[in-house]
């Protein structure tokens, strides 16, 4: 749920939900010409799809600052990359009815807090990165001495694209919107596979997170009696919770599409300085990018990363088995059970709340909750949730069930950690002994062994002038995993993490990890092979963007590692046993009695006897859980609500929550600049109109306290900085708005436009003849109709909603490429039609039900899958003791042996 580990957990537990995407690729003829794929042909996946939804930020991020290729040199190149990538995804899916492209618009306040934290961290990391880079340059110059000219290196140092401009309200988002509209119109004019497709573009001017705008759309269509219940939906995106969102649409024919990772292995190493291939930064001559020739050709040959499907329908099959409880006193309803399950998954992690301390996805927190749920459902009298609303009395059962196990969970966690650490040390020692023996045998040291390299390079003075040829193991940040040891889903999840880092975290943090990698390489840090631990724990650490090692600058490396407690060997430098940042010590010690007192004292700074405060935090948290569930299943319940603490309460703090009554007010949707001012640090102010800069930088600004340059990151018991909590002050909206108010009038007209509220756009081709005619006749014939035209689902092939004329737009005009270098052509006679689109709003809640006429997909699970799941299910989630709260009736006490 917003956390990459969820993908790994899901695909490990439910292996059949993942499958490979079959993709036809363009043919390259001997003369170099390309024959494009004819996507009017049947889909090579053996099944056709109706609707494709693109959570577009998942495309924009990797295309504008890719991790496996040189970055596009400017926005136009980025747009072309986006076109290419989108085209590939569309060709893969070949949607026959509808393509929806949704870019993140302004987010609910609850989300902005997370964005703020990410962007502030990103800015801080970017600054550190810059320092790192400067330092590296210094080293390189020194070592290369007179043989290298200094100037060119700096000249070609990659200009880092500021990913913070991928936020509503920036000029970049304007360019993106115009480009997407152009490209879709262009495709509608030229690609026969698009002839009957309707395209909806929801750009950044339309409020809401991309995937949630998509979900709102899907729900709105479901509410229409003309919606085909067997519509085949595909959503492309990187967020782990897309599969959860897919589940709660209760559309069974739903898939998530995302990139797979095999290409990772063939990812070429790029020079960290100039971003080009073929050399590393130590050999960077700072030459301008080679246009064609050797490397350009290699680029073409670079295999495309394959894609995978995540089948919601198969997950539904698994859940039907996993969640089924025989002999319930009420009717088992899979749709309701699924909602409850998704709700419980949100306890384990979501973008809007810190997760409960007792629940870790990697510790199978979801299983723990599921077991509680299964044992208590017969006594609760019904499901915990109903159509996106929580029954708080029943939620209390779940939380109390968790509270019963909480102490045991913390103790077990500590034991496991200790054991792991001891095991690691033991292996480490054994390895060292082996190395020693071998070195003695060989009679020499340092022929490429990692430790030797490290010691050789630790001191910058020792970096050899001529680096070893590229490709040696020495240079890979992480060792190439032994393929046979990797299961498919491990690979998948590796990617999940990588991608999520790119898309969700900030790009700066990815860049940072790259530069850290670079630093790590120049220090030739030992890297732990990717298999030592059971339960696939490896991946998490392996891909953590901020390894303890990377955090440090070369010059301070030595002393810090020496001062790390309990680490007189090289432990402190391995990503495997990272040290707490700045030597942060965990003084809460969840595994020792009295932890709750210490937690509230240290984290919340309240008296240990103030129990009411704990309940207050818990109530706010319950509100948050309710908010999240409603957000997932009904749409944003409140744009202003947010959880006002940096930390979660303990399960034990949820007391009498059944007495609460929760209701949300829709609230005010932020304007783009308000969001920018809420989430960006002063260092990223170039993405905000200048009139506001003063508010962020001037010491006398009445809101200067919102923009601290320094802030603490509390590791909160975690090992990695990126897992920690950024202790930023929460934005006080009234104060922010008041401060901005004064400046608003100073905005230029263009800037004012960018701060406005936009509408979704529907684009279709005139080959969708009936629909095209209906709309054009209504809006553009002599006797024009009402300002809104209600689509007839019979002509629109099932699409319901209203359309509205776009002011100043006329059909049959010319389609003009919106960017300067004309990477793509104008179309003289535009056969596409653009109108504003509004999906139907319902006065009713969206019901978690199947629709009449739905035909379930052919089951994918066979007998043995079912048996395996059932046998696992008997004990899963029950490691910490019994859970049924009222043991008297039904299945009590030891009923699950």
């Amino acid at each position, binding site marked *: 749920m917003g956390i990459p580990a969820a993908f790994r957990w899901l695909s490990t537990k439910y292996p059949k939900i993942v499958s490979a995407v079959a993709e036809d690729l363009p043919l390259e003829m001997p003369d170099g010409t390309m024959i494009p794929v004819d996507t009017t042909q049947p889909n090579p996946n053996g099944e056709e799809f109706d609707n494709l939804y693109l959570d577009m930020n998942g495309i924009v991020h990797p295309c504008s600052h890719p991790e496996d290729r040189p970055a596009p040199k400017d926005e136009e190149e980025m747009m072309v990359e986006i076109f290419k990538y989108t085209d590939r995804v569309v060709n893969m899916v070949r949607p026959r009815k509808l393509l929806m492209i949704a870019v993140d618009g302004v987010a609910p306040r609850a989300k902005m807090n997370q964005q703020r934290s990410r962007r502030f961290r990103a800015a801080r990391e970017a600054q550190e990165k810059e320092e790192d880079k400067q330092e590296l340059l210094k080293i390189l110059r020194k070592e290369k001495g007179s043989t290298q000219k200094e100037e060119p290196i700096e000249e070609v140092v990659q200009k880092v694209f500021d990913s913070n401009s991928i936020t509503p309200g920036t000029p970049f988002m304007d360019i993106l919107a115009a480009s997407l509209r152009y490209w879709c119109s262009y495709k509608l004019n030229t690609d026969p596979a698009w002839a009957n497709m309707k395209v909806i573009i929801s750009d950044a001017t339309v409020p809401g997170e991309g995937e949630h705008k998509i979900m709102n759309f899907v729900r709105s269509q479901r509410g229409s009696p003309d919606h085909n219940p067997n519509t085949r939906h595909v959503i492309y995106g990187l967020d782990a919770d897309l599969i959860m969102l897919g589940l709660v649409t209760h559309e069974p024919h739903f898939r998530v599409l995302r990139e797979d990772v095999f290409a990772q292995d063939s990812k070429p190493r790029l020079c960290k300085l100039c971003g080009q291939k073929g050399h590393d930064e130590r050999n960077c001559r700072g030459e301008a990018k080679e246009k064609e020739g050797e490397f350009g050709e290699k680029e073409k040959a670079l295999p495309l990363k394959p894609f995978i499907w995540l089948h919601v329908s198969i997950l539904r099959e698994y859940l039907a088995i996993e969640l089924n409880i025989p002999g319930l006193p009420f009717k088992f309803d899979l749709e309701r059970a699924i909602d409850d399950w998704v709700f419980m998954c949100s306890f384990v992690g979501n973008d809007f709340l810190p997760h409960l301390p007792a629940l870790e996805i990697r510790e199978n927190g979801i299983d723990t909750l599921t077991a509680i749920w299964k044992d208590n459902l017969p006594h609760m009298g019904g499901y915990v949730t109903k*159509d996106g609303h929580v029954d708080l009395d029943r939620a209390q059962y779940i939380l109390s069930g968790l509270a019963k196990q909480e102490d045991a969970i913390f103790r077990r966690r500590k034991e496991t950690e200790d054991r792991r650490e001891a095991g690691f040390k033991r292996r480490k020692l054994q390895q060292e002994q082996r190395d020693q023996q071998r070195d003695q045998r060989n009679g020499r040291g340092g022929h490429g062994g990692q430790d030797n390299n490290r010691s050789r390079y630790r001191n910058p003075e020792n970096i050899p002038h001529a680096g070893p040829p590229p490709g040696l193991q020495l240079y890979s940040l992480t060792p190439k995993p032994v393929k046979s040891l990797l299961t498919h889903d491990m690979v998948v999840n590796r990617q999940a993490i990588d991608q999520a880092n790119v898309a969700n975290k900030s790009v700066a943090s990815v860049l940072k990890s790259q530069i850290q990698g670079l630093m790590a390489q120049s220090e030739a840090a030992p890297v732990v092979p990717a298999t030592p631990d059971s339960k696939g724990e490896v991946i998490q650490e392996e891909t953590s963007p901020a390894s303890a090692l990377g955090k440090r600058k070369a010059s301070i490396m030595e002393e810090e590692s020496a001062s790390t407690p309990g680490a007189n060997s090289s432990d402190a430098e391995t990503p495997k046993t990272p040290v707490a940042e700045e030597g942060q010590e965990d003084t809460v010690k969840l595994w020792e009695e009295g932890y709750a007192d210490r937690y509230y004292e240290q984290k919340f700074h309240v008296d240990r006897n103030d129990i009411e405060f704990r309940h207050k935090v818990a109530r706010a948290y319950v509100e948050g859980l309710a908010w999240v569930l409603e957000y997932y299943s009904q749409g944003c319940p409140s744009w202003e609500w947010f959880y006002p603490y940096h930390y979660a309460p303990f399960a034990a703090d949820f007391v009498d929550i059944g007495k609460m009554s929760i209701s949300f007010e829709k609230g005010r949707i932020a304007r783009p600049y308000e969001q920018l001012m809420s989430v960006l640090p002063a260092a990223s102010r170039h993405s905000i109109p200048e009139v506001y800069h003063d508010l962020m930088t001037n010491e006398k600004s009445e809101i200067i306290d919102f923009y601290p340059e320094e802030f603490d990151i509390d590791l909160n018991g975690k090992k990695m900085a990126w897992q920690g909590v950024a202790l930023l002050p929460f934005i006080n909206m009234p104060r922010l708005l008041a401060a901005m108010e004064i400046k608003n009038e100073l905005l230029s007209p263009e800037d004012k436009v960018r701060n406005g509220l936009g509408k979704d756009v529907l684009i279709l081709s005139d080959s969708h003849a009936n629909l095209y005619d209906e709309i054009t006749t209504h809006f553009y014939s002599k006797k024009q109709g009402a300002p809104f035209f209600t689509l007839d689902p019979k002509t629109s092939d099932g699409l319901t909603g209203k359309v509205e004329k776009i002011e100043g737009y006329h059909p049959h005009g010319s389609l003009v490429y919106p960017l300067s270098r004309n990477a793509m052509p104008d179309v003289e006679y535009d056969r596409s039609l653009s109108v504003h689109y509004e999906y139907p709003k319902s*006065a009713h809640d969206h*019901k978690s039900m199947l629709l009449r006429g739905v035909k379930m997909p052919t089951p994918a699970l066979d007998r043995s899958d079912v048996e395996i799941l059932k046998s696992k299910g008997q004990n899963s989630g029950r490691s910490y003791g019994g859970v049924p709260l009222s043991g008297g009736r039904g299945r009590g006490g030891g009923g699950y042996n």
Partner: protein
Amino acid sequence: MTATFPIQPAARFAGQSEPVKRPKEFACFSYDKDHQYHPGDSSLKWYYPPTLGTDLSNGFEKFIKHDDSADEHLDSLLKTIETHEKKTNKQIDAHIVTWRGILTKIMAAPFEDRDGFEMNATFYRNSIFIEENHKCKEASRREQDNQTWKSPIPQEVMQFWGYKFETLSTLPATWGETSRDYIEKRDNEIVNNKEQYCSVVRTGLGKSIICLGGEVDAIWDSKPKVQGAPVNWVELKTSAEIRSDRDMDNFERKLMKFWIQSFLLGVPKIIVGFRSRDGILVKLQEMETNSIPTTVQRRGRAGWDGNTCINFASAFLEWLREVMTDEGVFRVRRKPRSSHIEVFQVEEV
């Protein structure tokens, strides 16, 4: 003078069917919960599947049953046609105007001879208006009621099952506009068969243009914007669950009436709720109306043929139009087990 139209041998009507005009709705009306007439579709229902396992006898004691002992003639149908004619300023062009049920009896005649029928046909304004002979219908019903009922379950209860199934399977608005509560508590709804939605269509069999009125149980999606475009109506039926070949034979015989009824109004889908012998809903089956005749034919045990029905009705109506050239009232009668239909002029109106 009595004119006679021989039904048998029905084989002469087999083969390629006469041209059939797709029924197009041109008007509709509703009866509300008190059986009050309203133009329009206020009583239209939407199909949403019922919960299996429900007891179809639930709520029998609260059943609000329409008393059909009064002769309703063609009143509502004529009222609706009249309104339509006023609106369009044009007289309808139908040769035959009647309820769907009447034409069903005629169409089924080649394969169904047990009950017989008596109808009144009036030639007026170039159209023949056919309605049930109410007195005769009442008489035959009384006779039926007097027959000994063999099932342990009272006849009224079994009749109720069908209406109950409709209540369990429909919503007064689209799924999207209906609350979960209503959907889940349909078992508690009071069954009321006074409420109806009736579709009025123009259709054609062979050379006869026909205007038909008939009740439609539910709609699958929504009415098309364009009048006359096909509508995804749903016909709801209950039937005893099939546990043997004999059950299957019986069911397939029943399918003839299901098919004719739906065929005549252009109802494309029939949803059958199979019930246990004691009235528990156990299974749902969706059937495409159009594929019923061939499906039944393939099994070859049902002993009815769709084309024969169509061609017979087509020939009979053409013949009737030749017979009824004078204005006035005619009796159209088939005695039980008779091999022909008699038509003769009567005095009473």
